[in-house]
């Protein structure tokens, strides 16, 4: 059995800690790094990271990508989305296909 983790600022993690998620409260960059390192070792299956913290620890998460678990997922924090989740999706598409087709599709649905 695996745990679910959440790395975020104190306001964001509060609501989730009531759900039984293991939460890591992060104040600064060092805290974020320590949280990710703890999450890597703690037997987690999924670790949610808020968008504002993710860029600071991206290199750690990238380095750990070879492992099957945990899976890191970006979610917006309580100050609203920065669009990082969408950007990551777009990067994956670019990597797989070579061009960005997400934009095109959106254009089609709008027009």
């Amino acid at each position: 059995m695996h745990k679910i983790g959440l790395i975020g600022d104190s306001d964001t993690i509060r609501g989730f800690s009531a759900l039984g998620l293991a939460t890591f409260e992060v104040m600064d960059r060092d805290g974020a790094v320590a949280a990710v390192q703890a999450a890597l070792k703690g037997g987690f299956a999924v670790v949610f990271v808020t968008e504002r913290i993710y860029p600071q620890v991206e290199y750690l998460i990238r380095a750990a990508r070879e492992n099957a678990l945990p899976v890191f997922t970006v979610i917006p924090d309580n100050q609203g989305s920065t669009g990082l989740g969408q950007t990551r999706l777009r990067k994956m598409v670019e990597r797989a296909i070579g061009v960005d087709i997400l934009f095109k599709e959106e254009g089609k649905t709008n027009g």
Partner: protein
Amino acid sequence: MNIRVNPTRMELLRLKKRVRVAKRGHKLLKDKRDELMKSFMSLLRDVKRLRLTVEQELRLGYQSFLIARAVMTPEMLDEAIIFPKQRVELEVTEKRMMSVTAPVFCLRQEGDVYAYGMAGTSGELDMALGVFAQLLPTLIELAGIERALELLAEEIERTRRRVNALEYVLIPMLEDTVKSISMKLSEQERGAISRLMKIKDVVRAK
């Protein structure tokens, strides 16, 4: 561009065989790439849809939580949520598709989200926690399929590189070499024939 080998019949046969294998591999890899692309596209649609829902719902959740925090004193809020009654665990299984192994998560929930009494807490907190609790399975699903999408993207990139390497490097190189060997061999043959004719003339002239 060709490989440096001895222009012998043995080498020629060996290389011809390699060309056949390479072409077959190229076709297979190309099929694999197309199939990967197909699953990638359908998965991409799901991920996009889920991400949008998650981001919208999360905003709602945060909003109601903010209201709950505004109407309750910080101490009371902390008291209400500091000891969660609910336990969540994930069961992880693996799903293989097209040589990509992606994790599949199954959420196990135990207990109740509302780990506090009616007195001293506000209805807004109930609402906020309700939104978060409802959203959790979707979040977990998103985590799973986003990971699968990422792995698929990597696999597509790898496969595409291999297809291109075969198509533009290995196969032309092998074919060039086959051609140059067969040209060298026929040149040798022509040389041998003309030598024989010359010898015959010399012998006859005596």
